[in-house]
């Protein structure tokens, strides 16, 4: 709400930004591209001071209290800074929202305003009509002719009692965004199917089966690439596809983009030589017709 009022007076909106551990490591390109998109939209990201890990799956899967404590520390910092909290990682988003729900369910706990912090996932930020309109106006290199499938995974939308999603079975935010960028959205039924990211290290065998189903479905839908907003999905889908390709030469191999990478590439004046370097699956061939 505070931001709505501010927008009237000041074109630059300030939000607190919680990158999370992945965006400082395996999903560095997600972090970089979120920051680029924020500049395009005149949003100033202030990294949450001294943030800690949200605990991800490992904490809540083994200890409820620990999971709530870890997430709550970050929310308290955001509450003190009186800012909305923008979160790119699906797992962080889920844990922060779940901690807020835990505090709302037990109102006698001292929450210090943490349940009132607006926790916003990047996908919800980018799907707002005014944001989409600004991106449309900023596109310099549309993704003409490119066929993509949006892949939401689990934790951006599920469970709706935690995330507040109104369309957990068929989310549409990224669909809208991809169309604004000029690409074609292909219909498929694996939008919210789990990729098994939390099992990818200890049970790579099982994860490969899940990834294979998702990628084959995307290929059947005629997609040339998969678009996601979850760092675990992105790393898991790309890395396990390499294994699958090694086992079976006929297996499709589709690059997996962060939606923000595509927005940044489409709106940037100049073509960044190293933009796609972090990808384990080189998207150059897929993107060259669009001139990216």
């Amino acid at each position, binding site marked *: 709400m505070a931001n709505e009022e501010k927008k009237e007076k000041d074109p630059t909106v300030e939000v607190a930004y919680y990158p999370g*551990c*992945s965006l*400082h*490591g*395996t*999903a*560095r390109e997600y972090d970089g591209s979120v920051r680029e998109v924020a500049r395009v939209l005149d949003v100033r990201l202030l990294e949450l001071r*001294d*943030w*800690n*890990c949200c*605990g*991800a*799956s*490992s*904490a*809540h*899967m*083994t*200890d*409820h*209290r*620990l999971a709530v*404590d*870890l997430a709550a*520390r970050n929310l308290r910092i955001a509450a003190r800074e009186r800012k909305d909290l923008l979160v790119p990682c699906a797992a962080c988003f889920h844990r922060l929202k779940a901690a807020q729900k835990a505090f709302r*369910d037990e109102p006698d706990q001292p929450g210090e305003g943490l349940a009132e912090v607006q926790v916003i996932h990047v996908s919800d930020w980018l799907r707002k009509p005014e944001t989409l309109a600004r991106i449309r106006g900023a596109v310099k290199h549309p993704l003409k002719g490119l066929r993509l499938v949006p892949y939401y995974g*689990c*934790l951006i939308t*599920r*469970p*709706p*009692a*935690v995330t507040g999603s109104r369309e*957990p*079975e068929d989310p549409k935010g990224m669909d809208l965004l991809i169309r604004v960028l000029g690409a074609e959205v292909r219909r498929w039924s694996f939008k*919210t*199917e*789990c990729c*098994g*990211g*939390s*099992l990818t*290290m*200890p*049970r*790579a065998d*099982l994860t490969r089966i*899940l990834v294979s189903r998702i990628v084959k479905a995307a290929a059947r839908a005629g997609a040339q690439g998969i678009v996601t907003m979850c760092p675990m999905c992105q*790393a898991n889908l790309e*890395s396990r596809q*390499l294994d699958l390709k090694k086992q079976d030469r006929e297996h499709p191999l589709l690059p997996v983009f962060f939606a923000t990478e595509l927005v940044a590439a489409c709106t940037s004046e100049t073509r960044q030589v190293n933009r796609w*370097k*972090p*990808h*384990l699956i080189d998207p150059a061939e897929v993107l060259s017709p669009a001139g990216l």
Partner: protein
Amino acid sequence: MEEQGTYVTPVWSELLHELSEAGAEVATCYQCGRCSAGCPVAEFFDFKPMQVVRMCCYGMEDALLSSRTIWLCASCETCTTRCPNGIDIARVMDVLRSRALLAGKTAPEPGVTRFHQAFLNSIRANGRVYELGMIANYKLRTGDFFSDAALGLQMLRRGKLSFLPSRIQGAREVRGFFRRKSR
């Protein structure tokens, strides 16, 4: 509630009490099977999600705590989202896992358990997860040094893994959370 049809009379147990406290009323399950039909990993489970829910009612805790299911559950929340009776089945799995750890059950999926331990150790040490250190810790615990070695090198080359951990100022505060865990 009047008990009839497919409803069961749950046998009181500490487990049921804890589930109820967590907001998971397993006795309301009427075995429709949506949770199990939608579960992406159910085919690898020894007990399907709908069986887990019913077994909780029957007090079959021993079998549940030593099951593969609780460790292979990916926590994707599809079951919770689809349950027509609002049972938070993913939370049921969380409760069962923490009870299994507490009871010192031998995990049938030691790799999964060790992964969670390595992940949490990394948070305890620095307040954030230091991916490279976490992976090394996991490899030491499992003795499995070779799987994904090529992948690790690829990721290093692409700048996807930091060489240095980032330690936060509030690391002590975070460590305190580990001392006052659930029980």
